[in-house]
């Protein structure tokens, strides 16, 4: 599986502004559903999963959330990227009451877990890489971001 293929400019939002997690999940999940990536059940499943097992992470260089849910709600694998204009609070992974102000969302649409084992490690490595971070932070258009992510995630997954 080629990880670069998981990124697509229609699934990238730059300088997006949301007033709550709920509003963001609604918008993203409707978009994914309309484009055939997920089942209608995906939205509720991902919201519930985030409540039970939160996914906020801070790597020291970047704070992100990686919402994901069971494979049965996913039709086509994807990574949905949101670069937020204003941070959104997410509960930190592994806690129930510690919050992290998240600047970026990487929603993972995982269809075959065994093919995507390396994906999250690669993503975490990139997020701790200063050069990747500097480039990422400069990007201001969806097209540019698509190209940047595809280049950075190419040929790593087999």
């Amino acid at each position: 599986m080629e990880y670069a293929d998981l990124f697509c400019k229609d699934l990238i939002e730059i300088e997006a502004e949301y007033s709550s997690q709920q509003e963001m999940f609604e918008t993203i999940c409707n978009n994914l559903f309309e484009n055939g990536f997920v089942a209608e059940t995906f939205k509720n499943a991902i919201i519930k999963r985030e409540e039970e097992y939160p996914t906020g992470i801070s790597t020291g260089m970047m704070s992100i959330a990686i919402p994901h849910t069971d494979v049965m709600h996913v039709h086509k694998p994807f990574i949905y990227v949101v670069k937020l204009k204003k941070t959104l609070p997410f509960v930190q992974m592994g806690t129930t009451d510690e919050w992290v102000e998240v600047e970026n969302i990487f929603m993972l649409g995982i269809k075959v877990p065994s093919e995507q084992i390396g994906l999250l490690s690669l993503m975490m490595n990139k997020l701790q890489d200063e050069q990747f971070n500097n480039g990422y932070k400069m990007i201001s258009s969806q097209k540019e971001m698509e190209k940047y992510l595809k280049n950075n995630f190419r040929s790593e997954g087999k």
Partner: protein
Amino acid sequence: MKKVIVACGSGVATSQTVASKVKKILEDNDIKANVEAIDIKSLEQHIKTSDIYVSITKATKDYDIPTLNGIAFLTGMGIEEETKKLIDVLK
């Protein structure tokens, strides 16, 4: 052989990622152990036969075996400390 279990909510993404990281650390240190990513629902059964539990969700109770912070292996923050504990128990 000693056994390490890694559990997350789904078994889809995080526990598999952390398990592969733990495996790599053990290989680099020439330590042989079984590392298994499991579903949190089956934690109680697995814990009885395991030597270390790497936790990604908030622990709701204390277990009799050493428990490590799995998030450290994911994000790299605090990884040296957790790696040391891991090696101390297994070597």
